[in-house]
């Protein structure tokens, strides 16, 4: 067969299938993976989409409402660490641990010159949280209403598998409660008391951290992530955790 003939042939891959058929096929994959990972929290979209250009879930596909998320306007961070101080104070974080912190990276500007980029990090409250999957005693789970990954310290046996499983180093063992501790978007300390944002977001003088409900098209997080020309990225997308902390530069 000549190349020309080959090009004339109709492709047999799934791109030529009618879209309903394609959807059924994809759903099949979902069912299989969802079965293994077994949980309503886990099957938001196929893992393949994580590596696609768009790391933000499609509108209308949010499994929670409010679907809490955070947008980091990364280049504005100046590492003043008021977020850390506010978090520590609000959530009684001991000095040996942290729920949120600031990483520092350098980008070459050519020659000896470089620019510093500060990267605020915290629990990503993933849609497919590896920590939740591995816990033997269900001491951590995704809150059914908000999608926040919460902890029940009294159930924690301290096997630390969740710490090993987390791609984001978001968990630490808190001696005071003899349990793993982590960011919960201030669910117990603020959100449940009527506050609308987290302690870290409130404390930020540079408006780096924007907290809100991604399922609400009027929310600032939604607007920021859906404004034209914006590049949105997440940390460690290759792990398939589908994080809910997004990074932008605009």
């Amino acid at each position: 067969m000549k190349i020309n003939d080959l090009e004339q042939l109709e492709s047999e891959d799934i791109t030529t299938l009618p879209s309903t058929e394609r959807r059924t096929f994809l759903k099949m994959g979902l069912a299989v993976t969802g079965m293994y990972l077994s949980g309503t929290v886990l099957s938001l979209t196929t893992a393949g989409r994580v590596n696609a250009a768009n790391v933000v879930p499609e509108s209308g596909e949010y499994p929670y409402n409010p679907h809490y998320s955070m947008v980091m306007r990364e280049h504005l961070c100046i590492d003043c660490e008021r977020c850390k101080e506010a978090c520590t104070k609000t959530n009684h974080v001991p000095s040996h641990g942290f729920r949120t912190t600031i990483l520092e990276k350098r980008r070459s500007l050519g020659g000896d010159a470089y620019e510093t980029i500060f990267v605020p990090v915290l629990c990503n409250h993933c849609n497919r949280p590896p920590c939740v999957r591995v816990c033997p005693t269900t001491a951590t789970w995704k809150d059914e209403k908000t999608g926040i990954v919460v902890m029940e310290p009294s159930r924690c046996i301290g096997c630390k598998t969740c710490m090993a499983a987390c791609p984001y180093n978001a968990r630490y063992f808190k001696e005071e409660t003899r349990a793993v501790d982590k960011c919960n978007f201030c669910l117990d300390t603020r959100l449940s008391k009527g506050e609308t944002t987290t302690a870290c977001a409130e404390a930020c003088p540079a408006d780096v951290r924007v907290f809100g409900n991604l399922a609400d098209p009027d929310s600032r997080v939604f607007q920021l992530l859906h404004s034209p020309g914006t590049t949105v990225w997440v940390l460690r997308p290759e792990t398939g955790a589908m994080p809910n902390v997004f990074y932008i530069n605009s």
Partner: protein
Amino acid sequence: MEGNVTITSAPEAIKPAINRLMWLALFMIFIGVAGAVYAQIIGHHHAFANTREMPWGMLIGVYAYFAIISTGLCVLAAFSHVFGGNRMAPVANRMVWLSIMALLGAFTVIGLEIENPWRMPLGVILHPNVTSNIWWMGTLYGMAVGIMLLEFGLILTKRFTAAVIFGVLAAIAESLANSNLGSVFASLSSHPFWYGAQLPIFFLGSAVLSGAAAIVLFTHYSYILQKKEIGEYTFLSLQTAGKIMILMTFLVSVATGWKFANAYSGSEAMVMAADSLTSGPLSTNFWVFEIGIGLALPCLLLVVTRLKSVYVMSTAALMILVGQFFSRFNLVVSGEIVPANYGFVGVPQYFSYSPTVAEYLLVIAGFGVVGFGFLAGEWFLGKVFHHKVFHPHTDIDHH
């Protein structure tokens, strides 16, 4: 004689030696558990070398080490019991017993490694998580210990048909538990050097290798304790175990080779993790102990001596068990040693980890439990282990 429980005391001649060793084992358990209790009180954060970034250390490796030995013994015992024609049947009862003891050693280590063992028994029952490999591993190993104790009871009371059925069930439970243990690491996509389909099957392969080595070693030591010559049938059993050791050292070496070939064609994190073993901080552990002493030399020794000498087989078995110990340590540490944030300012190329005294003490306790179990078996059940007296198949074959 069916239903007649046979628990005997050791022959007078070997009592003093076993007695002294049992006290030694008890002492090991005592100092290890004392160290672990001390660690519980002052907090693992202070007593162990683990950190937020490296939550697992030597103790997880040692737990896996004992659990893997247990699986190997249990699986080999089941094969021998079911297919009596294979020549390992004469040592199968000892394998069952040692499998239970190795698992108890593993439970001792993991039970004191986790921070809140008292929250576990109710926690895993009231709040089970069926997606958790840890949960399945614990449940299946727990079941396996129960089934094997029943099996052993049936062997003692000479209900051999039922014993064989329970032996097979135990082997299935152990195998599934073991591959779940592999999957505890292998399902963590956050750690690319662990992640993948290889580890669960690698653990099973290591189990067969460790199990064969353990039965050779312990059987030989039993005869040394008894100051007796190894009989023909037992020797043939050990030779079969020796063949398994040759085969499995080769297969595990091949699997290890592919593990590295794969890592070196992978991401930067994979390459760095592989480097930590081949040329980095773990390289002595890896080349000298895991590969040299643990796989290459014993294989060579066994092949060159053509399994003629029980001393050589026993030495090779010891080397394999030392190598497997390092292999588990290397596996746990190499998977975590590369910082996820490597490349950020102030983040090192590798984390450093060296176990603390409290960790070593707990390892000693694990060996103490296995050692005590072995000696107690020789003391009370020596006759059951003797091939001519109690065995479902050899009874028929050789009486």
